[in-house]
């Protein structure tokens, strides 16, 4: 499929979906799914292709270029697939709410513009698609009203700030190199001084960092993810923030070459180390803040921030193994985090919007498929072997250890252990424990929700056992960046200092499980007991008063909570308040007294004349 046609299909499809919604709701839903199916098929057919196409020859005298290469391909495919799953998930989810046409329109617009971003071949089209994505996301985040409004506000303000910074960086690159096409910039950037390069990198890092939620720039993410409608949360968390990751990779590996990037600046105080440091902080702090959350989606949102840190670590480290790890983690995170948001969304849908972990429980009996999906998602998030998160994290750890950065590796590993704690909290509070009586009549998730969840769970497991599939594509893109590809096979990675072989692990775990299951069956048959037939010091279990999930990790969290203030958020809030106060102060100069106004005019005149008398400007 040609790239222009692909973009025309997705953008046109989104508009068409909106218009069709005025006629028939059902047809609109089907059309939305069809558009994304077509996009998925179209992108899939581009596998292994590297080509460019001109979208428009002169937008302000700049050509708008599209290009496809393996690296863009894997991002585009992930976007299309996760977007498709989210749209299918919306089928039932959105039915209860108002303004559904708008929802579908914006959803498809966000996905289309993300595809546009990854396929763009120059900075101008990159920026245009980027901004379309920003504002359509803003509208969708605010969709749920009430608290969502503040969340949307936070998002769009940070996003606008970021994209303006990016605009400056981009124009600065243009003045330096005379072109905005990526290849041209790469070609002409060789002569740039290292100071200039660092300046540019920092500008772009701010822009991409805001989207990717690096630590001090992450504050928009938790409210936005938790307040957005759940199908969109999964898009937001699964792929939208990864557009920042895409930007990072594009900038470091595609434009500034990685050899240049690694050797840039001072030995200690350089952008790479800054990025690594921020990546480490991004892993560490949000992981622990997630532990303190009681809102399911907010917990997942903080977890997303933390996982973004791994990607940054992988990308900024700058070896081919770390890049593989970072990119693979992007891919995996897209799968399992969107899956988890769908799981929470399904629960939220069935319980009429309950996200408070403390008031849920025992839903495994009512929504077993959702639970299984959630369990697989959580395993992927933790990185339990046989799920996909394991391999990518292993790659990142391995490269950090082998290349002698034990402290970064320590932070990354510690983050994983924090992940276990909050992941278990999520699963336990929603699905395990006592089922409250008010949920006894709960139905299982509808089919339209089960299908994407099952699909994504399968993907999580399949790519966990066969990491070679995505790694192969990543290798292709690394060759495109002029790097040494990893030695991989279908089941894992071979390096000189430690190998990973999922075949062995998978066989061992499966066979071990089967043998132990048989062994388990050898024992006497067990009987099923009701949840109320439970040990309570001999007393009968009081129904509905046997809840115990409040303050689950209290001994730990009460120890660490004082150190986990979200200082960045407080800082930005203070800044916003300050600006408002300054504004309120400044507008007092318009006193309403016309005498003062006349005085301003005469003073202005006097000052201008004074300037001439004093400085002789004329």
């Amino acid at each position, binding site marked *: 499929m040609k790239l222009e046609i692909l973009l025309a299909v997705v953008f046109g499809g989104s508009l068409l979906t909106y218009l069709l919604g005025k006629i028939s709701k059902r047809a609109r839903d089907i059309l939305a799914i069809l558009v994304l199916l077509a996009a998925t098929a179209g992108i899939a057919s581009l596998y292994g292709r590297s080509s460019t196409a001109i979208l428009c020859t002169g937008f302000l005298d700049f050509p708008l270029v599209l290009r496809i290469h393996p690296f863009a391909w894997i991002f585009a495919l992930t976007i299309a697939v996760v977007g498709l799953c989210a749209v299918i998930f919306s089928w039932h989810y959105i039915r209860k709410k108002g303004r559904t046409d708008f929802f579908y329109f914006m959803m498809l617009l966000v996905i289309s513009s993300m595809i546009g971003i990854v396929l763009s071949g120059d900075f101008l089209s990159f920026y245009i698609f980027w901004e379309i994505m920003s504002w359509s996301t803003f509208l969708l985040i605010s969709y749920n009203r009430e608290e969502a409004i503040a969340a949307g506000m936070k998002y769009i303000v940070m996003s606008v700030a970021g994209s303006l910074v990016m605009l400056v960086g981009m124009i600065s690159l243009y003045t330096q190199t005379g072109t905005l096409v990526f290849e041209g910039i790469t070609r002409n950037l060789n002569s740039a001084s290292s100071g200039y390069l660092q300046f540019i990198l920092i500008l772009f890092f701010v822009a991409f960092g805001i989207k990717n939620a690096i630590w001090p720039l992450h504050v928009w993410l938790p409210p936005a993810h938790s307040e957005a409608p759940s199908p969109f949360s999964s898009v937001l968390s699964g792929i939208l923030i990864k557009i920042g990751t895409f930007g990072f990779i594009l900038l470091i590996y595609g434009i500034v070459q990685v050899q240049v990037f690694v050797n840039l600046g001072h030995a200690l105080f350089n952008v790479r180390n800054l990025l690594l440091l921020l990546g480490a902080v991004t892993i560490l702090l949000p992981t622990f803040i997630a532990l303190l959350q009681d809102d399911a989606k907010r917990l997942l949102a903080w977890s997303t921030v933390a996982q973004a840190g791994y990607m940054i670590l992988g990308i900024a480290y700058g070896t081919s193994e770390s890049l593989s790890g970072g990119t693979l983690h992007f891919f995996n995170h897209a799968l399992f985090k969107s899956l988890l948001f769908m799981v929470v969304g399904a629960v939220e849908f069935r319980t009429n919007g309950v996200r408070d972990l403390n008031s849920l429980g*025992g839903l495994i*009996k009512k929504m077993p498929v959702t*639970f299984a999906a959630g369990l697989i998602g959580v395993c992927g998030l*933790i*990185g*339990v072997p046989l799920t996909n998160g*394991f391999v990518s994290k*292993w790659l990142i*750890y391995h490269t950090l*250890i*082998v290349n*002698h950065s*034990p*402290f970064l*590796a*320590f932070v990354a590993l510690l983050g994983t*252990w924090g992940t*276990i*704690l909050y992941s*278990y909290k999520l*699963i*336990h509070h929603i*699905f*395990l*424990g*006592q089922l409250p009586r008010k949920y006894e009549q709960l139905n299982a998730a509808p089919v339209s929700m089960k299908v994407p969840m099952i699909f994504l769970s399968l993907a999580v497991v399949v790519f966990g056992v066969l990491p070679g599939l995505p790694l192969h594509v990543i290798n292709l893109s690394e060759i495109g960046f002029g790097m040494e590809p990893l030695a991989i096979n279908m089941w*894992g990675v071979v390096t000189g*200092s*430690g*190998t*990973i*072989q999922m075949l*062995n*692990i998978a066989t*061992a*775990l499966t066979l*071990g*499980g089967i043998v*132990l299951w048989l062994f*388990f069956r*050898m*024992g*006497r*048959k*067990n*009987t*099923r*007991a009701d*949840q109320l*037939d*439970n*040990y*309570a010091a001999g007393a009968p279990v009081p129904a509905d008063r*046997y809840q*115990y*999930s409040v303050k*689950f*990790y209290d*001994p*730990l969290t009460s120890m660490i909570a004082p150190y986990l203030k979200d200082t960045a958020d407080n800082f930005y809030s203070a800044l916003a308040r300050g600006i408002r106060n300054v504004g309120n102060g400044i507008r007092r100069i318009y006193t309403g007294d016309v005498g003062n106004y006349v005085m301003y005019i005469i003073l202005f005149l006097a000052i201008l004349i004074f300037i001439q008398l004093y400085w002789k400007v004329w």
Partner: protein
Amino acid sequence: MVIVLVLQILFVTLLSCLVGLFLIGLSRKMTARIHWRYGPPLSQPFIDIVKWFSQTAVSHGKLFDAGMIFSLTGSVVVVLFLPFGGICPLRGSGGLLVILYLMLIAPLGIALSAGEAANPYASIGVSRKLQLAFGYELSLLMILLSLMTYYRTVSIVDIVEAQIQSGWSLVQLPLVVSGLAYLLIMPAIMGIRPFEMIQAPQEISSGPMAEYGGKFLAFATLQHALNIYIGLSLFVNLFLGGGSNAGYFLIKLLLAFMVFQVIHAVWPRFRIEQAVRCLWRWPALLAFIGLIIVWVTTS
């Protein structure tokens, strides 16, 4: 070749189970002797296992069963990755990092299973278990990282072989601090006193085990036995040079175990926050210093 591998796997699995159960029996016997009691026979854990298998059991759901199996599977597979005196069935599949991750499966399985049981004691126990794990992982990760940094590999077999060349890690200068830290967190890894608050029968009715009876309890005990074996085996392999053959390895294991058993017999229990605070203070400090030393000396 395959037959050898299968034999190795069977041998290691069974032997580690036996060793683990034997160590539990030894622990009970030793504790009794220290308490001036006669104590149960060394075979008592085996008798218990047989009894549990002959009992009926009550299950709370599919996950209640599956979690238990999952948990024990995790432990068994970890054992396959650990060198057992020169025998390591799955040597080329990922090394220490994989072991670290596989060690997650066991507590996760128990946690899921206990969660399905819907018992508050179980939940409290799981919560404590995860918090305690978080407490000692801080140090454990730094210790393992200092080893991996020192030997420039993530493969545990390579580390053992390197020690055969150059002597035990515990007595090598850059690693001795890490080794001390490992000694301090060892009881927490094995779940023995003073870090026994996960089960705490008098307090939270044996925690995650509260709803387990019959074969579930048998599986849980086996898992506990393997857990003790894994903790000790890691220590022996990483710091005491492993073993050139199984016997030598087992002797080291036994000696290391008896040291901790003495502590187990005479110490009271920490509260969970005391435990975490304690683990984050001294062992973590030592491990951190150790990591810095290793980092500085090797770079």
